[in-house]
């Protein structure tokens, strides 16, 4: 299983804060996103397709090219605005 977390506007678009995705056939961030778009609302597809979101794997920033293995936690992170 891959644990996926959404934040801020992406959470609103996904209509959920987290979901578990079967790791079968998922090798990298882009194949994970393809699977998410299949399962989640159209609005998420629009929000993710431009690849402006940051990605984290197990709490570390990662690129959209990063590989993904079973058991990791992947975050989709819109531009941050703390402080």
């Amino acid at each position, binding site marked *: 299983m891959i644990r996926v*977390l959404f*934040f*801020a*506007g992406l*959470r*609103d678009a996904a209509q959920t804060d987290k979901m578990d995705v079967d790791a079968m056939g998922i090798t990298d961030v882009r194949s994970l996103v393809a699977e998410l778009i299949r399962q989640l609302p159209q609005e998420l597809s629009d929000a993710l397709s431009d690849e402006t979101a940051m990605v*984290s794997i197990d*709490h570390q920033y990662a690129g959209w090219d990063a590989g993904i293995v079973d058991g990791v936690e992947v*975050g989709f*992170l*819109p*531009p*941050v*605005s*703390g*402080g």
Partner: protein
Amino acid sequence: MTPTYHSYVWIGEADFDVAHEYRKACDVSPHAGAVVFFVGLVRDLYSEQLKGESVDYIELQHYPQMTESLCANIIQQAFERHPFDSARVLHRVGKIHSGEQIVMVVVASQHRENAFQASQFIMDYLKTRATFWKREVGSRGSNWLGVKDKDKVAAERWKNNDQP
């Protein structure tokens, strides 16, 4: 390797107490000659996105664990550039109203220059790297804010120079 500075990161919904944090900073760094604090507060807000209406409150979300880890890393990076005795970062999440405190950074060091530089560095990186998201909430809806261009510029300054 023995840590050469004290570091404290707190993220939560409760408000924080400036006087308490100052005392703690002095307690853990008894040889410091300079303490710099920064406190960020919610200003009176009028949102362009919400058609000029006033904002009732802001709401902050974060990525638990990742945020704490990033804040500790930002403190470490600040220390490598401008060594200090101790640094504290406190950041609230949840609903925060106008005039309330959002964030506090305290750096204690032997000399003032490093305390000023390190606290600025920490704030610039908190704004642009740490996994916090802020939205304005008014009666007509809400609006997630992106990182401001000037905050990006502020953080970029540190890439090429030792000080901004």
